[in-house]
């Protein structure tokens, strides 16, 4: 059900545009036996850190390792859930508050598999992929984000 010659994560320079998500909905799909799509979108929040407000996040990644790790995650998830499709989009560079920095898309015949596969992939993307977000403040200064709160 999974292929190893395909890239399971796509990097975007800057925010992920809604046009990319529409394309995902249209082409990523699914064949006529797919009844469920579960989608997670991560957006940059105007978090308050001390007295400073986040205005954007600058993302960097160890890209080659991300690709290899994502290959493993894709294999794990396909083996665990009867899904027909799994794809991850991740931003690199600057993403402003409210914009989309992460997209996880899973498809399956019945909803349970797509929902659980999507959720587990979101967790694995955040815990396993070597990607870093530098939170830029509205004023000056920055803060290195650390993933924890679900």
């Amino acid at each position, binding site marked *: 059900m999974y292929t190893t010659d395909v890239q399971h994560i796509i990097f975007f320079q800057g925010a992920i545009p809604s046009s990319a998500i529409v394309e995902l909905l249209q082409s990523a799909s699914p064949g006529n036996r797919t009844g469920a799509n579960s989608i997670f979108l*991560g957006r940059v929040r105007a978090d308050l850190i001390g007295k400073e407000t986040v205005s954007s996040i600058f*993302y*960097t*990644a*160890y890209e*080659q*390792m*991300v690709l*290899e*790790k994502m290959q493993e995650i894709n294999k794990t998830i396909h083996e665990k859930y009867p899904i027909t499709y799994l794809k991850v989009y*991740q931003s690199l560079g600057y993403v402003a508050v409210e914009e989309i*920095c*992460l997209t996880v898309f899973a498809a399956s015949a019945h909803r349970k598999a797509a929902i659980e596969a999507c959720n587990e992939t*979101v967790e694995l*993307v*955040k*815990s*396993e*992929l*070597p*990607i*870093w*977000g*530098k939170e830029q403040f509205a004023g000056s200064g920055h803060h*290195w*984000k*650390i*993933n924890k709160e679900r």
Partner: protein
Amino acid sequence: MEISVLFFGQLEEVTGTHRLVISDVVDTDALDSHLKQQYPLLETITYITAVNRQIIRNKVLLTENAEVALLPPFSGG
């Protein structure tokens, strides 16, 4: 024998370095000591180490052209 060392995220910021080529380090423990001498601020930041894009938990012998990477806590997504 040459290996390369990659710094990411806050480590890149603190060391002012993204990539370094180093000769004659036998294993990851020796490399770690060497790097901490060169960049004392590394002592202050949590990170894990990957060799050829595999995270290692114990000392690993380094071979020609090994790609070592120091990875601070992830914050993707």
